[in-house]
Each structure stands twice: as structure tokens, then as C-alpha cells.
């Protein structure tokens, strides 16, 4: 049995190798496009400082503590938002509500740890209780926010793409109501003049401490939790009966139903887990930051970026870890270049976007090709022989 387990493991971890392949190809493309960009800029009389580009964009990212911590810092949350997308994908759903679920999770957890417990239940305000419950509250509320579109999809056939977009907007407004205004928001610190737009600081006992205190970006134990969750999700998807059903519904809902799987229920469960993952991403970011509170806008585009990361990670948790750190690298490189060179930051954005485009393009085109020429290429059998 152990050998067969290993074999399946090899098959499933294919995600990593394929993701690596994709990232490599895309880097080559990006490099080429950079060359083109370079010459275009030259004709406009703007010479890109190539050595500075390499120094700050690559060397300082990979070979300094600051750079490395940046990769981990920016990549961490993306792992979770991408996992949220991935599990939905595996279940045949397209969750683009990561933004909203992230906001709701982060907000709920922050309110719990900043207002509810410290003010009402001070005797519970100690780390062993606060750290896990805060995470849990974030995940639960994110989960509820994923459950809603799941339920609407299962019961009323309301497509999750539409509902999650609407819920994203709703989430922004909920945040605005709860912490956006000095006059009516219930969870802002009214004693301070400029305190609107954010919760109060969460209780110290709910924060996550850095793994490497020397790092400039605070890479906390939240990252550890994240990676553990990724491994857990991998296990859930490929080794549990629930994961089996999720994949079955995702691959062929009709066959799943004909064999007694209640696809409606699975859809709801999948979306709930998906939302919980995004919500967890939100609260972990709050708990990890050096000024630990929820402030409007901290989600940036993490929820949406999760879609790209999941795509590049081939919806496989291990592939996603890799892809997320790749995105972390791009982000850190951009910041480095922005602060240390005179290259216009818009230009760096363009480059970053180019890389993402090239990363996504080969995979996208592969999906398209596979869809339309299903029989065209010889399918090589994935595992050659049975070891038993």
C-alpha cells in the first residue's frame, strides 16, 4: 500500500513540476518582452539601467534577508486566496469572491480580537485562546460568506460568478459601515480623530509573532499555518472521501449524481471551505501585520490575484505554494526597483503585468487547446507500471 500511495503522490505532485515548467517558459518570454521594451524605451530616449535592474530586481530579492522576507511576506496570503480558488475549481465552481470573503474574514476576526473580547470578555484575553479563536472567527465568517453563493448556486441556480461579484461589493460596504465612519461606525476608536477607516488595534494576545525577528518584513507563524493548510487541503482533496466527492462533482456532475453523490450539498460545502480559506487569509494578514488591525483596503487585490496564482499552480496545493512565492518575488522586485532605481514605477507595473500575462498565457492556451482538440494529442499513460 505504501508504494501505491507514493505513486499516487508522484502523480498528484505533477502539479509542481508542471507549474515550474510554466514559470520557466514564462520567464523566458518575459525576458524577451523586456528586451523589446528596452529597445522601445531606447528609441524614446530613455535608457533602462540594466545593471540596476538586475541588482535590485533579482540579486537583492533572492540574496538578501530583506528580499527573501519580502517573497515570503507577499506570497503567504496569496497561497490561501489561491487555495480558495483552487478548491472551488476542483469542485467545478469559479469563486471570484475571494476579495469579499477576505474582507469579511479579516474584519470579523479583527473586531473579535480588538473589540469584543478585550471589552466584554477580558478574562479570555490570553494568547492561547486568542490566537486560534481569532483565526477561527476569520475562517468562519469567510466561510459564511462563501456559503451564501454556494447555497444560492445549489438551490436557485444563481451562478456563483455573478453572486460573488455582488458579494464583493457588499463586503466593501459592510466594511465601510462597520469601520468607515467616525459618526456611525460601531467599531472605530471614537476617541481618536483620525481613527476611522480601521478597527482598533487587535489585542496583543491575538497577534502572531515573527518567525525570524531579524527580517524586515514580519514573516510570522501565520505562514506556517498557511503552508500547513495547503498540505491539509492537498490531503483533503486527494485522500479523503469528501475530496473524492468534490472532485467527482467538479469533473462530471451528472455521473456524480447518478452515483448518489448529492452535488448540491457538495457545492455548498466546497464554496464554504473556499470562503473559509479566503477569510483565513484575511485574518492572518491582520494578525501578522506590524500594526495589527483591519483597515479598509488592506485586501488590495489579493483575492483576485489568487485566481492567477491558482491557475499557474494548476489548482494543485503544492503548485500553488510555488506560484504564490513566485508572485511574492515579483512584488518584492517591483518594490525594490521602485525605491532604489529611477525606473518609473508604472513601467515596473507593466513588466510585472507582462510576466503574469506570459505565465498565464501558456496555461490558458493549453486549456483552450485541450478543450477543442480533446483527442488530438496522444495521451500518454501517466503511470507506466504497477509496482505491486
Amino acid at each position, binding site marked *: 500500500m505504501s508504494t501505491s500511495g507514493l505513486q499516487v503522490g508522484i502523480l498528484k505532485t505533477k502539479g509542481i513540476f508542471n507549474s515550474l515548467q510554466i514559470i520557466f517558459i514564462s520567464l523566458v518570454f518575459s525576458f524577451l518582452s523586456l528586451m523589446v521594451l528596452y529597445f522601445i524605451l531606447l528609441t524614446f530616449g530613455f535608457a533602462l539601467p540594466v545593471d540596476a535592474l538586475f541588482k535590485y530586481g533579482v540579486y537583492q530579492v533572492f540574496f538578501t534577508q530583506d528580499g527573501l522576507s519580502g517573497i515570503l511576506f507577499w506570497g503567504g496570503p496569496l497561497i490561501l486566496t489561491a487555495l480558495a480558488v483552487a478548491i472551488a475549481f476542483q469542485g467545478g465552481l469559479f469563486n471570484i469572491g475571494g476579495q469579499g470573503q477576505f474582507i469579511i474574514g479579516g474584519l470579523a476576526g479583527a473586531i473579535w480580537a480588538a473589540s469584543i473580547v478585550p471589552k466584554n470578555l477580558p478574562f479570555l484575553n490570553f494568547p492561547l485562546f486568542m490566537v486560534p479563536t481569532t483565526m477561527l472567527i476569520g475562517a468562519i465568517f469567510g466561510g459564511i460568506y462563501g456559503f451564501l453563493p454556494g447555497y444560492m448556486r445549489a438551490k436557485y441556480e444563481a451562478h456563483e460568478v455573478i453572486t460573488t461579484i455582488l458579494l464583493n461589493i457588499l463586503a466593501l460596504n459592510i466594511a465601510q459601515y462597520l469601520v468607515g465612519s467616525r459618526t456611525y461606525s460601531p467599531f472605530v476608536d471614537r476617541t481618536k480623530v483620525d481613527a476611522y477607516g480601521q478597527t482598533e488595534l487587535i489585542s496583543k494576545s491575538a497577534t502572531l509573532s515573527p518567525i525570524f525577528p531579524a527580517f524586515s518584513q514580519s514573516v510570522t507563524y501565520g505562514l506556517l499555518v498557511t503552508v500547513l493548510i495547503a498540505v491539509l487541503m492537498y490531503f483533503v482533496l486527494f485522500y479523503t472521501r469528501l475530496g473524492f466527492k468534490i472532485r*467527482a462533482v467538479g*469533473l462530471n456532475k451528472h455521473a456524480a449524481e*447518478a452515483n448518489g453523490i448529492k452535488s448540491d450539498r457538495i457545492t455548498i460545502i466546497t464554496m464554504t471551505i473556499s470562503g473559509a480559506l479566503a477569510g483565513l487569509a484575511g485574518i492572518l494578514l491582520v494578525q501578522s501585520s506590524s500594526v495589527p488591525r483591519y483597515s479598509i483596503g488592506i485586501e488590495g487585490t489579493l483575492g483576485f490575484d489568487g485566481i492567477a496564482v491558482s491557475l499557474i499552480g494548476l489548482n494543485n496545493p503544492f503548485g500553488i505554494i510555488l506560484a504564490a512565492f513566485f508572485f511574492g518575488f515579483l512584488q518584492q522586485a517591483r518594490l525594490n526597483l521602485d525605491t532604489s532605481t529611477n525606473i518609473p514605477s508604472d513601467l515596473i507595473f507593466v513588466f510585472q503585468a507582462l510576466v503574469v500575462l506570459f505565465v498565464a498565457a501558456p496555461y490558458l492556451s493549453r486549456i483552450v487547446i485541450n478543450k477543442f482538440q480533446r483527442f488530438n494529442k496522444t495521451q500518454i499513460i501517466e503511470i507506466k*507500471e504497477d509496482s505491486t
Partner: protein
Amino acid sequence: MNSTSQPILKVTDVSKSFGSVQALKQVSFEIFPGEILAILGENGAGKSTLMKILNGLYRLDSGKIEVDRGWFSDGTPQGLDPVFLESPKQTLDIGIGMVFQHFQLVESFTVGENITLGYEFVRDKSSSGYQRILMDYEKTNEEIMRLSNEFKLPVDPSKKVEDLPVGIKQRVEILKQLYRQANLLILDEPTAVLTPLEVDQLFNTMASLRKSGKSIVFISHKLKEPLHIADRIIVIRKGEIVSEVFPQNVDESILANLVVGRKLLSRIHRELIKSKKLLLAVQSLNYEMNDVPIIKNLEFELRTGEILGVAGVEGNGQTELSMILIGLLKETAGNIFYYSKNNEVPISLNSLSTLNRLNSGIGFIPEDRNLHGLIDNFSIAENVWLAYHSNVEQAHQFIKDNENRESLNKGYILPKKLMEDISKKIIKAYDIKAPNSKILTKNLSGGNQQKVIIGRELSKTPNLVIASQPTRGVDIGVMEQVHEELINLRNNGSGVLLISADLDEVLKLSDRLIVMFEGEIVAELSREEVELQKLSLLMTTGKGGK
């Protein structure tokens, strides 16, 4: 018939492997102008692979293919030229067209749009502006009518494909290839989905195509068919051509022998069942879709130790009936009662979920294996597990594994070992051609996919089996095996509802027969009462009963 003339296509020593599976070993054969060549062979023998190579879908590993380009372009033989077939588009340009078992039609398009797809008529090539991008429907229809008359393939170009019966869809596929000027047609198991009447029509078409000089290669598992229509028969076994015969020199039993490599013995023994108890009672069942009645006041009973055949031309409500019985469609009105094993009190199926129906001992072999049966991208083991996912206990019973029972029975973990054990047992029992149980079922041959479904459903020794077209696509050896097992189930006191377009099958197995026509039961006959002529009449007109 044309063995004296020059071949128009010649295959020499073609081999093809998929990973460790060698699908074709040094296959050589020729196709002559204006002939119908039949290819026979067991499931997984390599028939479809060979055809897909000719169609450019698969590339050969080694070997040579030559075609007579002169014959393909204007009918005048020029001699053979080597070609490298690399895509369906290219082979179509040469003049080779293939009709797959799974039709490649856009359901929501009309017949005309489907046929001309990719090669549409535009209004006027020389005109300017938006005129250039408008489709010329008149011209499209004209051209299709011309083809349709020329080859005697009547279709209505303005009808939507989704509204057509299977036989007509196939006709559209053939017309599509003809429209694209295919001179060699490849048909992969064209008759598997057709009713006997449609088969006759297809054969008429094939004969008239042959008359106009086209060549046809077709695959079949029904031995009668090549004997009836083919000029030459090639038999493939385990990737090699083992014989080439002419229909006038052989008969069914000789062919059977050639295909399976041994004598086929029918070991069907229909035991006399004395005490039959009620198993399934369907009472005034109605089903409407968009206010159109599909099933009207259906009323029948099935008893233990009985095989009840449902005969009828496809599309007369049989599909819906099976889906209602398993809970995939909800009846509009009516009652369904079912007696599970050792239970004197019937349960009403109406309010039961599909899962509960399955768990109360009902087995389901769906009509469309790729839609309701299998998950293409799951392995064999995972697909087998679909039938057991909520009933681990039964899985243990099947492999009679009592040791690991406790540890594996409960919990949330997928019992991979158990999954593998059951699927291995099924692979062995049905001789499923696969290197191991982790192969994705999409990489199995059509018949072997069907074997996975039959195997897993019958492995649960169901109390009641709802079998829709159970032997579609399986070879004669397997068909015999499945028939034996269905009879054994019956002999052991289970009931079988057998829905099949294959009249031979229905007549061979059924104890009793109901004939469905336009959603109604138009006749109920016992095994002894059946007369073939009367039955055909009943099936096609709904009249002629007593």
C-alpha cells in the same frame, strides 16, 4: 470485389503504443476504391486507434501510409504516394473523413449550420462591407439538399440538431463529411446507437455511397452486419491483424471464432422460478417536460427472478423512465413502490434520493456511459469507487476482506487499498484491458469503459438492476458474459429491467416484454407470445397488439 484494382490507401507495418500499452503491432492492410471494409475485434484490440491514425488524430510510432492522391482528388488512379498524416484537417483535405461514435455536432445549431461549419457560404465574396460576413442560408440549404438527394440522405437543413433522433444526427455527420468532399469514410461503431430500422437505413446509405465510388471503413461488434454489407472483413486481435476474410466465405460462428480466438459457448441457463414476489410496481407514472408529456400513465410490475424487457424505438420515453426510476428526474405524477431485500413492506421510491435508492439494492447501468456512467478524468479505481462511496461495508463484502474491516470501515479517509482491491477484482473478472487500476478511464477503449460500469454495478449483486443498453459497445465475448450474469442475477431472485435498442438482446433475455411507443406501453407480451414481425410493427407504429 475490387481486389483486382489498385488500392487507394495502403498501410504498412504501422505500430502505435500508449506508454507501456502497445495498441497496434505492425499492422498492414489496403483499402480499395468503392469497397466497404469491415473491421472486427475484441474490446481494446486497437480498432479505434487504427482509425484515428488514418484520420490524423493519433500519430503512428512507426510504419508507412500511402494514398492515391489522384483517386482522392478526381477519381483517376495515379498510384500510391507516401503521406504523413498529422491532423484531421489535413486528412480531410486529402479526402478522408471520420464519423466518431460521439458525434461532433453543435447541438444548438441547425443541420445546415453544422454541415457547413468551418466552410460556410457567405453572401457574396465580392461584395463589400457587412455583406461579406453574412451567411448565405439559401445557398447553404441548396447545397445540402443537393448532397442529400445525391446520396439519398434525407435531412431538413433548418432543423436544430438537438431536436433530432440519434439516427438522423449520424446522417448529419455523414453529410458533413461528404460536404467536405471525403471520398473515404471511416465510421467507428456506427450502428451501436441505432435502432434496427435506422441500421437498415444506414446500410442503404452505405450501399449507395459505394455505388457512387466512395470507400467506407466501418467498425462493428455485431457480426451480422459485416456479413450483410461488407465486401471484405479484417479481424484485429491484440493489435495485430489476424485474418482477412470475405463475407461470402464465412458465417457468424466462424467470425465469432476469429474475433475472440475461441469457440463461444452460450452457457445461459434460464431456471424455472416458482415463487415470484413483487419487486417493483409502477403506477400511473407521468412525466412532462415543458408541458409536453413524455411518459403517459405508465403502469407495470416487475417481480423477483424476472427480466422485464422494454422494447421500443429510442426516444419513446425509455431514457426518461430509467432516469425517473433512479431519481435523476422527478416524475410529474404517479407512484413507484419497491420491495428491498427481505422486506415485506414496500418503500415508496418517489421521495427517496438517488443515494438511498442505490443503497437499497438498486443497480443502475446508464444509457450514456460518458455522461452518467463514468468520470472520464477519474482512474478506474475511482470510477469503481463511485458505486461504493457511501457503502464501504458492501465493498468489503465484495472482496471478502474481513481483516481490515474495522480499521477501514469508518472515517473520512479514502480507502485506497480497498479501492484498488475491488477494481482489480473487476478488471480481472471482465478482462478489462488496462495496465493497472490507476489509468484514467478516458484512456480506455469504448468497450472497456462499458465493462467498468457493468462490472462495478453487478459486483454489488443488486436486488434490482435498471440496465439501459447494458452491452452497447462491448464485444461478443463480453456480451455473452454480461448476458450470463444478468440471467444469473435473475436465477438468484433479483429483478432486471432491461431497456435495450438491441432487439436480439431483449428477446434473448426477457421473461416478459413491454413495448413503449410515444411514452405509453402499447403492449405487454410474455416470452412465449413474442412474434418478431408483430413486435416491429408495435415498436414503430404503436399498433398491432391484440
